[in-house]
């Protein structure tokens, strides 16, 4: 249910990046996020929330949400073996059967990239000004 709050946070980040471009007609094309396996985010719910919410922002209506799930990697408690902790084996290390020590991967929840389109005419004007 908190996927709505997460979608809103993603939108806020995109809006901030758009504002920093300082172009009246810039539009967000795509926002890419990474979601670790050990975070409570359901990609389908997030996509649904995002698609509903972006409608309220004209500069976001065509913005796609790309999600990449990062599979977890743990170091086990006993011997620092690297492994993928799985619920079916109670997250235990397959080699020595101790539990999760630290998680090297799997706790990400970040925006990695925002693609913004600036209309061609305006971009040329910018270049002219710079050049």
């Amino acid at each position, binding site marked *: *249910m*908190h996927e709505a*709050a*997460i979608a809103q*946070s*993603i939108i*806020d*980040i995109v809006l901030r*990046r758009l504002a920093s*471009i300082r172009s009246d007609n*810039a539009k967000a*094309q795509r926002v890419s*996020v990474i979601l670790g396996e*050990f*975070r*409570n*985010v359901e990609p389908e719910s997030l996509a649904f929330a995002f698609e509903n919410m972006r409608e309220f922002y004209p500069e976001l209506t065509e913005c796609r949400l790309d999600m990449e799930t990062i599979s977890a990697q743990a170091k086990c*408690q006993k011997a620092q073996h690297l492994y993928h902790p799985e*619920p079916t084996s*109670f*997250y*235990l290390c397959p080699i020595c059967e*101790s*539990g*999760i*020590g630290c*998680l090297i991967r799997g706790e990400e*929840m*970040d*925006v*990695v*990239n*925002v*693609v*913004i*389109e*600036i209309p061609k005419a305006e971009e040329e004007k910018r270049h002219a000004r710079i050049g």
Partner: protein
Amino acid sequence: MHESADEHALERILGKNDEMADHNREHFRRSKTCVFNVMSAPGAGKTTVLEWTFRNLDGKFKPCVIEGDMVGNLDADRIAKTGTPVYQISTGRSCHLDAQMITRLLHSESVEKSDTIFIENVGNLVCPAEFPLGEYKRIVLLSITEGDDKPIKYPVIFRNCDLVLLTKCDLMEHVDFSLEEAEKRILAINPNVLVMHVSAKTGYGMEKWLAWIVRQISEYQSEIKKIAHVHHSAH
């Protein structure tokens, strides 16, 4: 097309909440207030444990409660009956408290006057785990009527907490719940957590819980004194 795609562009999605949580934490450090975030599935016994605590704390600390509920103030009324000051946050359709909701209460009278705050989060084993509030320690309750498989199904909240209370132990003979199995599963997810067995109904294990709280408060107080000292000598 403009692409903002360098390493620096990596930005935590819930970064704003984390910032507000840090703000709250700093505020609590200055006011020397020790804060606990109490989380569980609906009905695991959060309010009952708090009621027992306030009826038995014997002046050891000066608490205040922040109650998060989607609707109503039933829990706040129960806490008020113990004579403990309590604030109600109605989260509406939101299934968790967020840091900003706590920020709004920072300057409330009883929050300022107490040395210990218990925040009872909305009953939910998923969403509250993602929203730190500025707490010092996180407590998760799992009642034995919920089943000993819950740590496997909700690993995130069990990984990110300091104490797990296995509650309603007075019902042991009526349910198939292995305390040993549950504890093993929790420790496999979170090696640093402490697990306690309690019943707020009979008082079983509750003295140990109270002692843990008192110890956390005193450790917190000496920790922030040390930080204050470091700050001081740095200037």
